[in-house]
């Protein structure tokens, strides 16, 4: 405020003839400029995030069928879609699979990613080359790795079983063909895909930790494990939160990998909320039911998005 009036007075002095501008008008104009800068982002968010989100919620209360695309009419049917989906045994199954898949994937990806990040934070010959090679799974499109892994995991002719067979252990493991194994196999493949991401981000985080901290710890006579637990992990915490939350959001909505690996089978053993919403909407063409499952997925993600924002806010302080 005070600076604004000062500059206004100064400009009035130099131009002379122009009357001193109203400070209120100036403030309003500044407000307007501020909003002008924010507006494109707001419009963008409303158009591309707000609208589909609201649309999806509305759709879950509608009888939305192929006919709707012609007539534009989608009569509201109360909570019919919701009760139908929630009562369906498959929904409970898919929800459980989604949670197991997400938890298992995150645990595996994070632990292996962290171990590799610590491993590569020491300098050694060819370390850079190896580190970039480990990135490969991340660069391969999900569908491609899904199809390749489907071949690798084939029970009779797959490379993995052939290899295990020559070692004399578990040569005919039904990786993708047994309902008891399939979910585990899909998780393992997803861990393989997610490790590079975790490693890269955590590696970056490790580089940020000041060397002095480690030096001080070793002067104090702390063991390697103690240093890792009491120095590395706590300083790495913000990065860990980011890795886990981002990992969560990309894992919970998994679709392409499962479609390529098992199509949700065998016997619905790998159905997740992602595949269920795909099946309802695009195979059965019951868009209302698909929207219900989609909304549940959004709700779960939203809860974790709040955690993410919280974590970021404490970072800023």
């Amino acid at each position, binding site marked *: 405020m005070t600076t604004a009036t000062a500059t206004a007075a100064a400009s009035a002095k130099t131009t002379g003839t122009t009357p001193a501008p109203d400070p209120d008008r100036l403030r309003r104009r500044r407000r307007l400029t501020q909003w002008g800068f924010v507006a494109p982002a707001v419009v963008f968010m409303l158009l591309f995030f707000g609208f589909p989100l609201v649309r999806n919620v509305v759709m879950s209360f509608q009888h939305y069928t192929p006919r709707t695309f*012609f007539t534009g009419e989608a009569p509201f049917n109360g909570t019919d879609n919701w009760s139908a989906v929630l009562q369906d045994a498959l929904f409970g199954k898919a929800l459980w699979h989604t949670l197991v898949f997400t938890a298992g994937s995150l645990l595996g990806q994070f632990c292996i990613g962290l171990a590799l990040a610590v491993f590569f934070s020491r300098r050694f010959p060819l370390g850079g080359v190896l580190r970039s090679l480990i990135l490969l799974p991340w660069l391969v499109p999900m569908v491609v790795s899904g199809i390749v892994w489907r071949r690798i995991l084939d029970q009779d002719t797959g490379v993995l079983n052939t290899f295990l067979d020559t070692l004399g252990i578990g040569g005919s493991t039904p990786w993708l063909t047994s309902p008891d194994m399939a979910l585990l196999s899909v998780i393992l493949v997803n861990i393989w895909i997610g490790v590079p991401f975790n490693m890269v981000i955590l590696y970056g985080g490790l580089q940020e930790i000041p060397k002095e901290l480690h030096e001080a710890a070793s002067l104090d006579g702390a063991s390697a494990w103690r240093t890792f637990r009491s120095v590395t992990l706590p300083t790495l915490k913000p990065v860990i939160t980011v890795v886990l939350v981002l990992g969560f959001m990309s894992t919970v909505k998994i679709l392409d990998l499962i479609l390529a690996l098992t199509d949700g089978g*065998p*016997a619905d053993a790998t159905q997740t909320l992602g595949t269920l919403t795909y099946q309802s909407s695009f195979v059965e063409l019951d868009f209302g039911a698909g929207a219900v499952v989609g909304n549940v997925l959004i709700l779960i993600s939203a809860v974790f998005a709040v955690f993410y924002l919280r974590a970021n806010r404490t970072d800023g302080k």
Partner: protein
Amino acid sequence: MTAHPPVAALRGRRRPRRAVTSFAAVSVLVSGAALTGCAQERDSDVYTVMNSSTDESYHRWDAEAMARCGTRLGVRIDQQSVPAAQVMTKALRMASSKSLPDIVQFDASEMPTFAEAGGLVDLRALGLATDDIPQGIVDFGSYRGTYYGAARSVNTLALFYDKDALEQAGLEVPATWDELRDTAKKLTEGKRYGLALSAGGAEDGVFQFTPFMWSNGGDETELDGPRVVQALDYWKALLQDGSLSRSTVNWTQADVNDQFMAGNAAMMINGPWQVETLNTDTSLHWGIAQIPVPQAGDASVGPLGGAVLTVPRTGDTDREQTAGRIVACLAGEKEQLTYALNSWMVPANEKAATVWRERVPELDALADQVAEARSRTAQLGAGWPAVSLALQSAFQSALTGRSSEAALKHAQQRATSGNRGTRP
């Protein structure tokens, strides 16, 4: 000479008007594009066909057929190919933005859904004749008695076998379930299985189960009926004999073909669309027979597969008329034969099929199978996808340990519980 001045004067007067109209046209176009998003601008003699011919060879065959028909009808026909699984959703999206193409080629099992939504024009009203088409194939392209889809060719499943493997083992081509089970068992040795089929968790698996279900007298309206249970038990028996790989629940029909070509299976259930690939391996001597039946003398009922050409309702009757003529040309006797010879599928037209049989005697068994084949959606129409999903889950859980009866009972409940919203 006298004509010149008025023309010049006219030109002079017209110039500003032209500027105004072109400006108006541009602004209409711009605002139109902004309002309708991706609504396509229809060119008066350019017609669009949307199909799923994303394979290079199919795309080329279709392009050639469209070029020929285009020349005949004096129009240009453009081809727009999208992956098979996306044809329906893309067409629906286009319907809501009023930008449907003039012709859409649907998989015949999807056509009823689009017809039920009121999106298709009756082909008979557009002047298409069905005289030379067998009733089964007319039904295949019909929904509730109205003929919406013209098939160019149809396909079904058959038993493919490795002639050398059977000869070495001194075995005959199986014709009944018992023979198939026996032969498959005897042909299983080392890394080679007797039989390969797809029980994958998608339409592929259901397509392959139907000939066993139908030939045994089972029906999709009663999934837990004893005949269906028996058919599934037969699949289970093949698996328990070790004649069928346990990976079968994870295989698509293309995977089955790969296994057969790699020598990992001596026989397979598959369709004629694999012939092109099969023939790339000249050392492989394959034969083809009807799918074995429960008892000698039973009819082998396979599923009728293939795509149909439809004219979506765009509201522009003139264009719809021309689209009808294009469909008539593409599905005409001559084009059918060319297409069938290229793609190894059976022409829908009887006259074309007779010529085709003479030209491709090795696929004779397939033509017989087509004559008996049934359409998946004949009974359930747009209700088929829900039943198909329930059935997939059922045979997969039966093949991985559950009893056929329990699995199918559950499937029947799931298919008829009328949940999944309020599907009519």
